C-alpha cells in the first residue's frame, strides 16, 4: 500500500491469526472474505475506530499474459480503518470476490459503512450481505446496470433526459 506507512501491527495480526503470508508493498494484503467481518471487529477492538472507506473494483476476465496468469472476472473490495490518535495509523486490506459472491457488511460495527457500501453496491454492483438497507445511493432506483463496471459504456443513454 503506497501513501501510508507500513503497518506492523496489522501485518503481525494478519500473519498470526488470519493465515496471511503475502504482504505486497504496493497493495493492501488479501484476506479471505469469510473472515472480513472478524478482522474488522478485531481491529476495532485494537483502536481502529475511525471508518475510512471501502473501494470495490471490477476486473474483467483476462487471458494469461506477461503481466500475470489467466484471471476470471472478479471483484476486489478494499476496506480501510484508521486510529484517530497520534500518527493516524491506517489499516487496509482487500478481499477477492468471484462474480455473484457477496461480502459481509460492516454496518453492524461501523455505522459509517452504510452509505459507502450502498454507493459501492450502486456503482460497482457488489452485494453486501446483511446490510440493513441496501438500496441504490447515487443513481435512481430504477436504473439499470452498474456504471463503474468496466464493461459499462460511459455514455449510456437514458431516454427522455439524455
Amino acid at each position, binding site marked *: 500500500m503506497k501513501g501510508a506507512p507500513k503497518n506492523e501491527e496489522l501485518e503481525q495480526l494478519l500473519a498470526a491469526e488470519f493465515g496471511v503470508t503475502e504482504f505486497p508493498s504496493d497493495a493492501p494484503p488479501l484476506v479471505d472474505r469469510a473472515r472480513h467481518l472478524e478482522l474488522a471487529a478485531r481491529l476495532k477492538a485494537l483502536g481502529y475506530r475511525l471508518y475510512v472507506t471501502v473501494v470495490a473494483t471490477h476486473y474483467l476476465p483476462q487471458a494469461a499474459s506477461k503481466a500475470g496468469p489467466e484471471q476470471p472476472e472478479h471483484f476486489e473490495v478494499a476496506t480501510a480503518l484508521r486510529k484517530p490518535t497520534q500518527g493516524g495509523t491506517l489499516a487496509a486490506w482487500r478481499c477477492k470476490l468471484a462474480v455473484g459472491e457477496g461480502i459481509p457488511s460492516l454496518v453492524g460495527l461501523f455505522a459509517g459503512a452504510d452509505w459507502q457500501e450502498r454507493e459501492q453496491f450502486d456503482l460497482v454492483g457488489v452485494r453486501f450481505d446483511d446490510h440493513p438497507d441496501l438500496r441504490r445511493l*447515487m*443513481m*435512481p*432506483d*430504477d*436504473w439499470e446496470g452498474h*456504471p463503474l463496471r468496466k464493461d*459499462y*459504456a*460511459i*455514455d*449510456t*443513454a*437514458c*431516454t*427522455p*433526459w*439524455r
Partner: protein
Amino acid sequence: MEDDRAFTHPLYDFMARMPGLDVATTSVDKLLTWGASNALWIFPMATSCCGIEFMAAAASRVDLDRMGTIVRGTPRQSDVMVVAGTITVKMAPRVKKLWDQMPEPKWCLAMGSCAISGDFYRDIYSVVPGIDTFLPVDVYVPGCPPNPEELMHGLLRLQEKIRAFRAGKPRGAAERPPTPEHMRRPSLPRLDDPTRPDELSLLQTQSAGSLGHGTEMNLIELRRSKAGEALAAKLAALRAPAAPAEPAEKKE
C-alpha cells in the same frame, strides 16, 4: 430563436381592451416593459459550483440587487430561472417541474458550461447534455464558472432581450456566429432543433409530472412503454449520422 417568443401578460391585454386607454397603450406598454425588465426576480436553480458563484454575485461585492433583482426561493414568485450548475438525469425532472410551476412570462438563463452543454461531463451516463434539451433558454452565460460580473452582463442582455421582444424587434439567429455542426449535437436534440421528435417533450413532461414521494423518476415504465421505445429508436437513428465524425476527432 423563434420570433413568437414575445411575451405577454394579462395586464397588457387588459390595457389594450380598456376603452379610452388604448390611445395611451404605447406609453403604458413602455412603462410596463420597463418594469418587467428591471424587476427580474430570480429563482436560483443552484445545484453546484456555479451556484456558489451565483451567491457571490448576490453578495456584497457585485450585488445583483442593485439591478432590481431579488433572489426568491420559490418558483411561484419569480420571473427568471437561473440554472447554475450541472443537471443530472435524477435532477432534470425536478428542474422541469419547477420550471413548469413558474408563472408566465418567464425566462431562463443558463449559467456555466454545465448548464449550457454539460461541460466535460457531457458524455457521462448521468448528466444532461445541456438544459436546452428540455428548457427554452434565453441567455447563455459561458464560463466554468462565469465570474459574477459575467452573470450580471448576462442579466443585462436579458433585459435588452425582453425589451426588444416586446417591441417586436427580436434579434434573430442570423446575428449569432454559426456553431459547428458536431458541437450543436448533444445526445438529445435541443428544443430549437428542427429534427427534435415531438414525443421527446411529451415524455419529459410525463416524467416530470409523475414525480411523487416514493418515486425517483418512474423511468422504467416510461422507457418500456410503446412511446418510450419508439422514441429511443428515433433518437438512436438521429445520433447515427453524427457517429462517424466522432472517432476522427478523438484521434487528435
